[in-house]
Structures are given as C-alpha cells and as structure tokens.
C-alpha cells in the first residue's frame, strides 16, 4: 500500500505513443507496406498534481491536450511511459481489484448499457460484476434512480431512451458500487441544456453525500463552473495551471471589464471620450462596457468615478470561456516558439507529499 492520502496523485506522469506516419497517396501507402515509418508522439509530458479526498476538480484543455490520456492512466487503462501515480493508495495500471471496485469511469460518447433491455437489467449485471450484496444494491440503485429522477424510465428498453436519458442511466450504472473516485470524461457531451444541468446536480449531490473525489473533463465551461472550485489546465501535454477557478482569471486575463452606467439621459454617453479610459466593447443605452489592462483597472475606475456622473460601476473578470481560450492560445504560442509548455507560468502546481511506492 502507498500513502492513502491524497485520493489521487501523479508525479512527472508521461505517456508517449508510437504511431505510424506516412505521406498521402498510393505510392506512400505501398512504401509503408514494406517500410513502416514510426513517430513518437508525446501525449503527456510529465504532469504533477494531487487531488484531496472529496475534491471536484475540472481538468481542462483543448482537444489533443492530453486530458483523456492522463485520465486513462489514472483509471489504469494505460501504462505510462514515465512517472508515478496513485489512486486511493494503489498504482492504477496494476489494476488491482481493491482499487477497481472503488473507482469508476464515465465516458460521454461511449455506451455500456444493454441496448435492447430496460436499464434495470444492466444495473443488475453491474451488481453481479461488482459483487454487490442484493440489499445494498437495491438500496443504492433506488437512491440513485430517485436522485436522478428517472423512476419511470428504468423499465423502458434503453434503445427507446433519448441520448440524455441514456446518459443518466450510464451514470446510475457506473455509481452502483458507490465509487470513491470518479473519472468523468466529457460526460455531458452532446446533451441538451436541461440534461446537462440534471447531470451536474447529480454529480454535485453524489459528491456531497459520499465525499467522493471527482476529476472531470469537459468542453462545457458551465459544467466546470457549476461543479469545480479548482481546475487543472493542460496543454500540449504539460500543465499550464493548477489552482482556483477564480484565480484562473487573475492569472491569465490580461484585462478587466468595466461596466459604467451614467446618470441622466442616454445622450450623456455620447459626450464622453471613452477611448481615454479604455477600449469600448459594448454600448447599451446609458451603459458602456470597456476593457482596461488588468494592472490599471483600479486607477481607471477611480478616474471614471471622479470625472463622470456615474450611477453604477462594475469591475469584472472576463467570462471564463474567454479566459480559457486565452490560456490555450498562450500555450499554443509557447509551443510554437519552440519551448516546452512546462516553461509557461505554473503558478500553483502542488507537489505531492513525499510518498513511497512500495
């Protein structure tokens, strides 16, 4: 056994895939029959982080950043090329029963339910695989069905359910054994807004009731903002950021947004030289929204208050989507400049506690 705390940790975890490579065209295809050219692709280049028990952490990054590869290493599906990791005190890729019966993996675009049968039959199958005592299984199943609000759907064949309803069943099936660590890979992908919200509330409530640790990847920022106080950002296989979601804006947003509402008639807005304060991004009646460099936001706000007849003033970070887009753009620029993502600011990467890997 390894130190059971934290719930999940990774140190210098890296994965390189060897993939065949060839030019387009018939000639290249024939050539590759005889001589196969292989190329190493570093999907994850040594990431280090730790998750405390009960944390819900968003794992962010553009497509191909290394999120899923990292998640799969932590779930024991992939052997890393280098580095160490532990989940609940176990080395995940040894795939010990003691670990696998306490974790779960939910993938948004993969279905594991029995297509032609009601979900209840798939639940029973999972109960047999996880060897759940019948009474405990029935109790957990009913609790999860109730929590998800799908009582009338579980007796319908899965093929007759909508995508959102099927995903709800996937979640119930995946949590019947009350896992302590949840790896959720794009669980809400392709779902409508209502289904997304239901799943978010479900995960939040499961986390509250059981104290489970959750590592979530999603391209929907609403998932992340609703569930995660902490985010880990990965790009080109390296960590760019690990810290509070709120801190992400402070770290990466170069500007703030000032919302200024003037006293008096709408015409008052037109008589002001806004360019002297910052860049105007929107005008709506008596309200003007301007962008100002982050460092001078307070000073500009003070000038606005002293020079203009202000009814209301707000200072905000830009929307999280924009911040994330900037983070990714920064990572891409760094990669294009020929440096490794590791050299980009990694403001609060937490070193795992000293542990042994016995």
């Amino acid at each position, binding site marked *: 056994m390894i130190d059971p705390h934290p719930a999940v940790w990774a140190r210098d975890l890296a994965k390189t895939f060897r993939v065949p490579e060839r030019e387009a065209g018939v000639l290249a295809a024939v050539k590759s029959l005889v001589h196969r050219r292989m190329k190493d692709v570093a999907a994850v280049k040594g990431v280090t982080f730790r998750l405390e028990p009960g944390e819900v952490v968003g794992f962010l990054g553009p497509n191909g950043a290394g999120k899923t590869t990292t998640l799969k290493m932590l779930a024991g599906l992939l052997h890393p090329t280098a580095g160490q990791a532990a989940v609940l005190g176990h080395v995940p890729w040894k795939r010990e029963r003691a670990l696998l*019966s306490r974790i779960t993996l939910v993938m948004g675009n*993969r279905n594991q339910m*029995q297509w032609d049968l009601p979900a209840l039959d798939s639940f029973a199958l999972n109960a*047999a695989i996880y060897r759940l005592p019948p009474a405990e299984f029935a109790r957990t199943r009913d609790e999860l069905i109730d929590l998800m609000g799908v009582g009338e759907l579980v007796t319908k064949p899965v093929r007759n359910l909508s995508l959102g309803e099927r995903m709800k069943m996937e979640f119930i099936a995946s949590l019947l054994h009350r896992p302590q660590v949840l790896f959720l890979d794009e669980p809400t992908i392709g779902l409508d807004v209502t289904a997304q919200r239901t799943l978010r509330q479900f995960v939040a409530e499961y986390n509250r009731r059981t104290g489970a640790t959750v590592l979530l990847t999603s391209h929907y920022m609403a998932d992340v903002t609703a569930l995660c106080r902490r985010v880990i950002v990965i790009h080109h296989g390296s960590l760019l950021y690990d810290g509070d979601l709120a801190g992400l804006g402070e770290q990466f947003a170069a500007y703030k947004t000032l919302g200024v509402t003037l006293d008096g008639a709408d015409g008052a807005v037109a008589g002001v030289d806004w360019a002297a304060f910052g860049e105007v991004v929107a005008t709506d009646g008596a309200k003007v929204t301007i962008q100002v460099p982050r460092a001078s936001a307070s000073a500009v706000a003070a000038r606005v208050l002293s020079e203009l007849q202000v009814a209301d003033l707000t200072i905000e970070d830009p929307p999280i989507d924009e911040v994330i887009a900037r983070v990714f753009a920064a990572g891409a620029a760094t990669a294009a400049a020929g440096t490794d993502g590791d050299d980009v600011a990694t403001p609060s990467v937490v070193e795992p506690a000293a542990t042994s890997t016995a």
Partner: protein
Amino acid sequence: MSIFRLAAAHWRVNALNELQYRVNLVVQLFQSLIALATGLIGLSLVFRQTDDLAGWSRPELLAVMGVHLLMGGIIQAVVQPNMQRLMGDVQNGLFDYSLVKPVDAQALSSVRELRIWQVVDVLVGAAVLAVAVVQLDARVGVGQALWFVVALVLGALSIYSFWLILTTGVFWIIRIENIVELFQGVYQAGRWPVGIYPPWLRGGLTFLVPVAFAVTVPSEAMTGRLTPQTMALAFGVAVGLMAVARGVWRLGVRRYGGASA
C-alpha cells in the same frame, strides 16, 4: 468460482436479449437441419463407395459428425461471439469499460456473449452422437463417456485459446475481421477424422489450428480409439495454448492505447 458467476450473470442478460427475437430460433433450426442433411448426404456418398474410411466405420464417422456439429455449436454459441465482440470493443474503445471492472478482463471478455439459439446445433450434434453410439457394436461405458467429456472440454479450451490468440492480434493490427471466415473454412475440415488427410495437412489441423483436438480426439474417446498418449497430448496442447493465450493477452492489454487516446 467467479468466472461461472460472471458467465451466469451475462448469459442471463443475453438470454433476455435473444428471447425477444424468436425468429432467430427458426433461422437457427433451419441452418442446423441443413448442416445435418448435408453431413448425412456426404457420409452416405462416402459409404456407397467403401465400407471403411482410413479405419473408421460408418457409425464411427457418424460420431465424428456429431462431435463436429456439437463442438461447432459450442464455438458459435460462446467462443466466436465473445471474440468478435472483443475485436469490436478494442476498435471502438469500449474495451476501456472491460478494463475498469474489478474482474479479470480476459475472463470478462470471454464470457459476456451467448448465442442461445446455437444450442440447437449442440443438441442436434448430441443426438447424432447418440444415434452413432447406438449403432456402434461395442457398448460405451461410463469411463469412455467420461474421457469423452474431458476430451471435449480440452478441445473447447484449445479452440478458445487459439481464437483468443488470433483475436488479441487486434491490439497490434486493428483490422482482422476476416479471421472468422478463415477459421470456419478450416473448421469444416474437422468434419472428417484428421487421420484421413495427408501428413502436412494433418499437422496443420493438429497444431496450427487445433481442430484435431476439438473434434477427432473426443470422437476417438467415444469410439474407444483414444490412447493415453493422445489424451496426454490433448491435455498438454490445451494447457500450452491457454498459457500462450494468457501471455499474448497480457502483452496486448499492456499495448492497448484506447480508441481516442
């Protein structure tokens, strides 16, 4: 043992699934009858020319046919559908779910599917075998029947291991769909005792594709031709193939990269 519990849980679900499609039973009955008829016609054609084929009498060859049908039923009911599903799962990434379950992934991947209507083939094979046994001059004792069951199990394990080794290739070469047709073609050769084939083909059907151990050896057990040496060889081949299959499986799983990683 947990593998039986695992199989029982999955087979229950499979049965529930297939019971919804009764027409499959009719199709299967039809297929089995055609296989039975062509087999019997083949046998009668042979025995119109001769009274014995490489030392095998008519009822003995009928027994081989019964075992061939029976074993074919087992392969198509359990082995082949599981291996085909495994291939598909590795290709589309669903194999991830097999790896995160707290059970042996090889065991799980080997027992998930059951085509219950293929049981018709097993029953028809058993009936043909029973008729053959009645026609045999010598009585079949309990010991002989027991050896037959052991040989049948060893043969099935050999075939399963052979299939698994081929299927595990999917971890290296993504597309190997044609092995089903390849195997079925070779399996048809098992309709006759391997002793009737030329030595080079006999070797291939014994060690390359273990059809000899799946059909001929159990037939020998039933017809009183089995020698202890052959039985020991069948045991050795089954254990050896299972060990190789396990080793190749482990290598393959280690190499598995998932569909989207």
